[in-house]
């Protein structure tokens, strides 16, 4: 069974952490992954940097730009991750925009992911209908779970469709926003999380966008299976460096 699905079966709330590969330093990737696993994180999203990250706020944009300036490329990321499965067991997801993946070649990209031991992909600008028609077969051939986003504005009909195409979890975007812009959750989010949880979808939901600390993590996971922290983690890396990972995670769990 795919490591993501194994993890989702555990009776616990899942903490997933996102970081931009190649940031703060080009060769921090493996160290960050190892430290996150040691700190008790459940899942990791490795950000493949892109020049034009449409769905991201300033923090992830800046880390992405810096990573590219540092020299990060798709090929280099795969080289860095070549032996990652010798040291970690944690589910690993690559999150990136569609164009760099398209240029690498969809099939080659998926094949490489399988070789390395990547468990899933999140590609925010690859819509579910285009995926289902053109790429689903290829992703599944290489054992990759593709994760789709839903938002408070996504219709029930579309959520059901996304659920039917998904085979891992659904990424529940907490509010109408780009990453890193929200400061806490109110009744609107709580009602939305509850509404989705009551739909009894076949895939569990993991909440992302706007989670930055213990409080927002526990609010997000009251109804969802888990939550994702991205911008807040990157801010911490910027301010306190790679050595601060364990301390950051311990404040949340």
């Amino acid at each position: 069974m795919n490591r993501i699905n194994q993890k989702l079966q555990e009776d616990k709330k899942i903490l997933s952490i996102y970081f931009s590969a190649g940031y703060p330093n080009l060769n921090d990737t493996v160290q960050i992954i190892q430290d996150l696993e040691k700190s008790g994180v459940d899942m990791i999203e490795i950000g493949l940097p892109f020049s034009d990250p449409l769905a991201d706020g300033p923090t992830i944009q800046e880390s992405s730009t810096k990573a590219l300036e540092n020299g990060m490329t798709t090929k280099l990321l795969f080289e860095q991750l070549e032996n990652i499965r010798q040291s970690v067991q944690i589910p690993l997801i690559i999150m990136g925009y569609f164009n760099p993946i398209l240029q690498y070649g969809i099939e080659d990209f998926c094949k490489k992911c399988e070789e390395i031991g990547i468990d899933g992909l999140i590609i925010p600008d690859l819509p579910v209908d285009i995926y289902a028609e053109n790429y689903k077969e290829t992703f599944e051939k290489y054992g990759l779970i593709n994760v789709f986003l839903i938002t408070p504005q996504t219709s029930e009909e579309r959520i059901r469709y996304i659920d039917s195409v998904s085979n891992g979890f659904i990424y529940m975007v907490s509010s109408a926003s780009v990453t890193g812009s929200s400061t806490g959750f109110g009744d609107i989010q709580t009602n939305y999380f509850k509404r989705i949880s009551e739909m009894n979808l076949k895939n569990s939901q993991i909440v992302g966008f706007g989670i930055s600390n213990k409080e927002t993590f526990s609010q997000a996971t009251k109804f969802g299976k888990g939550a994702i922290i991205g911008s807040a983690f990157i801010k911490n890396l910027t301010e306190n460096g790679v050595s601060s990972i364990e301390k950051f995670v311990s404040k949340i769990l």
Partner: protein
Amino acid sequence: MSFHVNEKGFYGNFGGAYIPEMLYPNVEELRQNYLKITADKSFQKEFHELLKDYVGRPTPLYFAERLSKEYNTKIYLKREDLCHTGAHKVNNTIGQILLAKRLGKTRIIAETGAGQHGVATATVCALMGLQCIVYMGEIDIKRQAPNVARMKMLGAEVRPATSGSKTLKDATNEAIRDWINNPIDTYYIIGSVVGPHPYPDMVARFQSVISEEIKAQLLEKEGQENPDYVIACVGGGSNAAGTFYHFLDEKEVNIIAVEAAGKGIDSGESAATSALGKIGIIHGSKTLLMQSPDGQITEPYSISAGLDYPGVGPMHAHLFETKRAEFISITDDEAMNWGIKMSQTEGIIPAIESAHAFAVLDKKKFKTADIVVINLSGRGDKDLNTYIDYFKL
């Protein structure tokens, strides 16, 4: 073969809507409604009245006698430079603001490079009394101070895009992010035939008034609707889309799209997407774009801010791939010299964008009897500083 968009939003291999799920409800609302609303009689009436009485349409189709004599062919200029606000851009913003109103939107956002689309958007927002926010690259704000001032006078807020290269593509990213953050009340007026479906088709339809008028005007002047050639410059490609639109299926009409070669195609400072681009995704559309081998979008260059875009609309990518249109690229120097030549031969100071289109006259040999229509997409007032610096005027 069809040169128009299909029901899935594609022109051949190009187009579609590669958008994050956060944008789906907005784009889907537009996709479901744009044809219905724009076909409505009351919409058509209001649109055409505004084009006539506010924009000043139809714009003349002017026989350029001295130029025709010099090049021994029949050259007509479609005078989009005479539109209110100084360029064709306003045809589209009038259409989209009427659509936004009918969708019940109260807050308008737009991106702009040189500021022409920003001014055209600020203008129609003032006309309709709607809030207007224009995203503009921080570098472009410095380069295009007069247009920033115009937008402010018209009541728009100009927000600097400070990410990435701080130019048009980044302003577009910021506008898209704004739309993600404000999905309910906000309408995004895109300025070119780019972005996710249905934008390329919608903008092309609003601009198609250009070729509709050319047909009627040629019939009157030449006794035939179709010219032998239509020529227009292409950045994202909205004036070209409008100029070509009603000729796409008329096989005897040769279509020429003119791109900015900048300092030369191989100089590393160019915006000639058809020559330098590869298929990829930019701003929600699958099209030809300039990018690194790793799929990072690269920064284009042209002396003309309106042609300084790393992609090209999906319709144009399809016209290029199917060879329906011939693509020719023109350098900064060639375009600038045509700015002077047009001024002194016909008494018209063209926008530098449009000057690229005229430079084709030196690249191609036309027959004496050929009817050649060149779209003069904008006037050169906005480019005076560039002309002054370049020619030390």
